[in-house]
């Protein structure tokens, strides 16, 4: 009984904390000055149509580096906790006929779509994280459909580590080539034309590396969770 009363008090308290945000809220009609600087700079300095990509990769690039680190730590933790079943005991049931045929038709399309999303991240909505998740979903589909699809964890680990090292390496290359306060500055590559595919400096390369890294990490997490079979 006392627990129910405390629950109600906690929820009313949380509502009372959130209430002042609702009372004096009016939808703004002009952008605030910081957002104006970012939008102007993304078109003029960086030659980049997608302003959200400019904020994620360049202006707040250290936050993206921190996010990639957190994702890596979570993947390492999940891989540590879930034991891998030995390969002698294969998966018992295959997918149904519809799933097998559909997976064989759709998995190449998934891969191409994922690569399109992260390579055009600077021209249209999308980017590295969305493309990586679509690639991991394509790999999941073929893992669900086939009975004995042996996954080479070594390739996934190599691609994840190499893309991580290359991402930090490109950030450091900005530091070396452009002066001492320009970590993750992408202006040392060719600027190119506005709205072309190879434009906006090193940003497409950085986003593609992030996409490959996120895709291999999530694919290895899905493979680890599916194959867990041991005791503690």
């Amino acid at each position, binding site marked *: 009984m006392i627990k129910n009363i405390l629950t109600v008090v906690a929820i009313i308290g949380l509502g009372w904390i959130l209430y002042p945000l609702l009372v004096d809220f009016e939808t703004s009609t002009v952008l605030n000055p910081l957002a104006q600087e970012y939008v102007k700079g993304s078109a003029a300095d960086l030659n980049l149509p997608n302003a959200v990509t400019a904020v994620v990769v360049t202006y707040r690039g250290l936050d993206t580096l921190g996010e990639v680190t957190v994702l890596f730590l979570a993947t390492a933790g999940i891989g540590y906790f*879930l034991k891998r079943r030995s390969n002698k005991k294969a998966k018992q049931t295959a997918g149904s006929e519809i799933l097998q045929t559909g997976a064989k038709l759709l998995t190449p399309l998934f891969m191409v779509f994922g690569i399109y999303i992260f390579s055009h991240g600077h021209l249209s909505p999308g980017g590295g994280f969305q493309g990586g998740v679509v690639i991991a979903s394509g790999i999941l589909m073929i893992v669900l459909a086939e009975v004995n699809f042996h996954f080479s964890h070594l390739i996934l680990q190599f691609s994840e580590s190499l893309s991580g090292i290359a991402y930090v390496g490109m950030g450091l290359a900005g530091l070396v080539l452009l002066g001492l306060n320009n970590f993750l500055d992408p202006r040392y590559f060719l600027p190119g034309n506005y709205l072309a595919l190879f434009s906006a400096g090193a940003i497409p390369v950085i986003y593609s590396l992030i996409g490959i890294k996120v895709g291999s990490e999530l694919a290895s997490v899905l493979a680890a969770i599916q194959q867990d079979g041991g005791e503690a």
Partner: protein
Amino acid sequence: MITLVFGMLLVLVGVWAMLTRKQIIRIIIGFTIVDTGIHLIIVAIGYVKGGTAPILDRAVSELPAAAAGVEALGKVVDPVPSALVLTAIVIGLAVTGLMLAYTVRLFKHGKSDSIDDYEEQKW
């Protein structure tokens, strides 16, 4: 404004789910609902009335690069909350996966999936 109200209501429903359920997986589902509600609140704050998506291509302005940035200032929404929520969604997925790995391992050790049976691990 409407997005803000529904985000706050989702946060309250999620916290209620975390506080009153006994199974560990239900508590984790409540956590993901709280996460979704907070992302709705943040995106609702960055909205500019009558604005469009912050992508400066031919649909927003026809001028070449440097002048396009200045002309688009009156027409796009704020890009900074979108970038922050992008990061937050991916981190929410990572933390949820880690919590579920803990749950699976805890269940294999303790043989029970109700949180009342793990009292011996409190100190």
